[in-house]
């Protein structure tokens, strides 16, 4: 498990490893679906340095607008 730089959930998992062994790994966060590569700049990989304007609060995710809108029968 890895910490998501964007929403800081601790649930991110490895989804890919470089064909050349040990070069990099790709992680994905199941909470905000953020995806990143281990060798990206720290402004992407480090939760402390991730651009604050693009941070995601997990509490806001269920309130995101549906595009396109869902037909009524799918709305609980």
């Amino acid at each position, binding site marked *: 498990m890895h910490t998501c730089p*964007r929403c800081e959930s601790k649930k991110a998992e490895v*989804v*890919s490893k*470089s*064909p*050349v062994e040990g*070069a*990099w790994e*790709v992680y*994905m966060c199941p909470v*905000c*679906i*953020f*995806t*990143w*590569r281990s*060798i*990206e*700049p720290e*402004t*992407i990989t480090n939760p402390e340095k991730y*651009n604050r*304007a*693009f941070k*995601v609060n997990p509490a806001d*995710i269920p309130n*995101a*607008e*549906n*595009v*396109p*809108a*869902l*037909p009524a*029968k*799918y709305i609980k």
Partner: protein
Amino acid sequence: MAYKDFRDFLATLEKEGQLLTINDEVKPEPDIAAATKAMSKLGAETPAMLFDNIYGYTDAKVAMNVMGSWPNHALMMSLPKNTPLKDQFFEFARRYDQFPMPVQREETAPFHEVEITENINLFDILPLFRLNQGDGGFYIDKACVISRDLDDPEHFGKQNVGIYRMQVKGKDRLGIQPVPQHDIAIHLRQAEERGENLPVVIALGNEPAITTAAATPLLYDQSEYEMAGAIQGEPYRIVKAKDSDLDIPWGAEVVLEGELLAGVREFEGPFGEFTGHYSGGRSMPVIKINRVYHRQNPIFEHLYIGMPWTETDYMIGINTSVPLYHQLKEAFPNEIEAVNAMYTHGLVAIISTKRRYGGFAKAVGMRALTTPHGLGYCKLVIVVDEDVDPFNLPQVMWALSTKMHPKHDAVIIPDLSVLTLDPGSSPSGITHKMVLDATTPVAPETRGHYSQPLDSPVNVEKWEQRLRELLR
């Protein structure tokens, strides 16, 4: 005249000096996006780029900026690479009139070489990478997405081929942005009303005619395949999918078959868009991938999108201008000369026209606002005389500098519709629009001092043609 497949087009670009291969090692981020954005900054005649030494990969190849310049756009239509923009516009308009061109069906395709149905992992199959720093992940944004009308499945023209942004959201999962105005959103709504998933096919790495047709604003029942045939001047080749009745571009490098999941919306984005701003943080539909095919050692074609101009603007410039030109021609067949709707997909459009009488040019500008494309774009329409080339911005600026009188020639119409991605719209999707009449006043509108326009030396046009041939 047609390109057989994506590799055939790359080979032509290379032969014409319009493909730069980067053999030096690059990192997936930020190098590939940075190099592509930098290439766009070097002008309007830049080459495509092929990266074949990417850190961590053994044999990945990534092609960028494939149609990111006017020479490459000319070569898309098999024209000489130095064909002037206005000539490319008229040639595109001529071929657009050849629609529909029947398709050619094939049984097998090169992408059948490798097929994967188990343990699909898109992150392993495709050399994916981030484009812009605020992007929520790795995207696919130049692929053809194909779907059918469920209520009229036999109607070939209602099968849609479109280009939509897709976020890779899992090993076999993509998020997609079908904004309500897009054809695929109609298919999705049909599927969700039935409670069924919508079959889709995604084709990556195509020859450029289908990419151009897929990015052209066609009517709902017009086939992009039949338009691609018209653009390339030969029947377009397609092959059937295995899991559905969908038709696939024969020359694709990689094909993903799957289904749009009915009733599912999931957090997506943000993604740097063609407006030069991010959009996202919304919940969007999801595609589950069930089958992948690709050629041996596929080339991954990707598109950098961001602050204009980028490849997108070259890709949707002429093919947005031509439908607007045709719609204006329907209203004013003898007057409309040419239309340049290349700025941010036509948020700014320039129309050159003859005038029958005073006030006519303003009517032309107003008509542009009410065309199908104008309803979502054309926030600013500049109207110029028929002898001003709307693709030549210095000429347009000359017309604005000398022909426009702000008191008489600036018309603002309040609270019209615009695409919601317009960051200036308020509320989102509503904006004032403006027509600037930069034509020479004609009677009964007699103002200003325009009786002595400068002429050119004799035979300038002949010389222009001759010099162009000498420089070819």
